[in-house]
């Protein structure tokens, strides 16, 4: 069990598909016998998936037009009219 804690960085890389293939095989061998690490892999993966769900927020239209006029004013101030 103690060994598991040393693996956490590898587990994160593994979940992201960024672990070297030789280390991958080692970790997979460990995962076969270690339920907690299997749960860790699954739940860390799901943590990111859940965060990506839901529709992405977009800048509301009125806010964007307010922003655009503020930017235009600032631009004129800086560069003069063009």
């Amino acid at each position: 069990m103690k060994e598991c804690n040393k693996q956490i960085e590898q587990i994160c890389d593994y979940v992201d598909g960024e672990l070297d293939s030789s280390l991958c095989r080692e970790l997979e061998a460990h995962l076969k016998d270690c339920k907690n690490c299997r749960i860790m892999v699954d739940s860390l993966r799901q943590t990111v998936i859940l965060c990506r769900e839901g529709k992405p927020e977009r800048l509301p239209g009125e806010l964007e037009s307010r922003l655009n006029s503020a930017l235009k004013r600032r631009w004129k101030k800086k560069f003069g009219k063009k």
Partner: protein
Amino acid sequence: MNENQLVKLAQAGDFDAFNLLIVGHKDKIYRLAMKLTGNREDAEDIVQETFLKAIDNIDKFRRESSFGTWLYAIALNNIKAQAGDRKKMTLKPIEEYLPGGHEAGAAELFDWGDPHKLFEQKQLQKLIESSLAKLPHKYSVPFILRYIEEMSIDEVAAAIKLSVAATKSRIMRARLALREMLSEVFKERANERVQ
């Protein structure tokens, strides 16, 4: 026209070029500001301040990073100046988030299964939002940039001005802390269901 050409034009005073440079970043910066501040008014201020500062400092942009990374750095400075890290949780030492817990013989972790069976989508989103908002910015910012905005580690490191190793470690801690917050809620919910 590529980014470099647009930057040159913008630096010479071409407002259309500037607009082309920022058009893809407005939503992203707004999303980040919303996630971190949790309210629209603050997010609006941050977006506005970020792009105004980008205008003020456009001549100082030296193309050492991408324009987007430069914008993020400005936005993050604004967020820091405005919000600070009020009422955020303190993260535990990293060992306490790990699968083995403290020592050998640690308790078995809760197996998530499919969280969508425990909560409706809307409830899940709320839970994610509130959990992310509890994290100190120094952890939530790199996590959001990496996994929600899908920037590379190098880009995130450039935006938050930390080494790649330090950036990776912050992202990992955020992920572990979030995992644990969610796990506690899921476990409680699953137990309620059984009863």
